[in-house]
């Protein structure tokens, strides 16, 4: 075997390794969100059953479930499943400080959010629906007296809602926690 032939063989081997590694890498990146067993939704599932509002654990050195959570914010969540009907989310806001609702897909991505600036009479309210439920609701809307509901289409049947409230001072964290705990998530009766 000549020196050139050996060099060519080695180059071919390295190229094959690089191609295999790249292929594996891309497959892994695309598969991780689908097969991840410990994503945010799974971690929330350990804390409360679907439909129930439960507080998010306060960020701290001993709480290693939800990374990058801000210790200045209190949070609460509910998981939902729209197969039984749309979900009505209600929250009251009345403190000094920022508060928000965010609606997440089963994979954790946010598809809608509103802050206390959008609150009317101290309330934030929205109805999460599937595309089919939205069509059904619109078909049953009274044309002379249309619904005032804020309807938000969820890209996934399952998902979760998070309410967060900012505490202006450490001593006000309890009040923020009380505010988020009062969020309700209720399945609406299906439209006839």
């Amino acid at each position, binding site marked *: 075997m000549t020196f050139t032939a050996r060099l060519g063989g080695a180059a071919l*081997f390295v190229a*094959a*390794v*690089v*191609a*295999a*590694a*790249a*292929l*594996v*890498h891309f*497959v*892994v*990146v*695309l598969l*991780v*969100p689908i097969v*991840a067993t*410990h*994503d*945010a939704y799974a*971690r929330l599932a350990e804390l409360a059953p679907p439909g129930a509002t439960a507080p*998010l654990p306060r*960020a*701290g*050195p*001993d*709480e*290693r*479930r*939800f*990374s*990058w*959570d*801000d*210790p*200045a914010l209190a949070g609460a*969540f509910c998981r939902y499943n729209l197969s039984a009907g749309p979900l009505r989310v209600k929250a009251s806001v009345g403190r000094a*400080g*920022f508060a*928000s609702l*965010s609606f*997440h897909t089963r*994979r*954790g*991505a*946010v*598809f*809608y*959010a*509103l*802050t206390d*600036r959008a609150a009317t009479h101290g309330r934030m309210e929205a109805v999460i629906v599937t595309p089919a439920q939205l069509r059904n609701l619109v078909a049953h809307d009274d044309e002379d007296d249309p619904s005032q509901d804020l309807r938000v289409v969820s890209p996934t049947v399952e998902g979760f809602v*998070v309410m*967060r409230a*900012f*505490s*202006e*001072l*450490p001593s006000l964290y309890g009040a923020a926690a009380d505010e988020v705990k009062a969020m309700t998530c209720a399945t609406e009766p299906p439209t006839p």
Partner: protein
Amino acid sequence: MVVKAVAAGAIGLALGVAASGSILADPPFGATTIGAWRVAAKAGSLEADPYTRAALARSGEIPLALGEGLKLVARVDSAGRPLDRRCLYRVGAHTPAARYWTLSLTDADGYPVENAAGRYGFRSSEILRDGDGGFSVYVSALAHAGNWLPVGHVQNFALALRLYDTPLAASAGGIEKSSLPTIDREGCA
């Protein structure tokens, strides 16, 4: 020939899996670097790239929506040197416009670090300010006068700046470097 092909496949598999693990710990795309800070404005949105989505699924983070605010993370100082627990840093003096902001210290994975003072961060509504409305936060392992953010006992740490209800959300790429706090290394032990 067959042996070589199988060997190439096996080595490629191992390399591919190993590289994926390290790349997803700090996804390379979807984030903008502005001075010492990195911001991934679309990280929590439906438009996030596959790398950011995969990283999110693994970390268990519940992302902020654009309309809620922005999270910026610094793992280096303003000169680009990795944050070092043996050094004292001064972070200040202004932030971009936001209704509230917080500046907190975390370990490399984004969790607060145990410290005797029980201080994990500062809120814009509680911080001590200079006469001109600016602020200085001192980040160090050793206690410091003023707004002291303790490093605790971790080797690697990060600083997180969160801007709540900020008009910047719509154009995170357009954040002016001069509007962000600088992270100046004041000295090292």
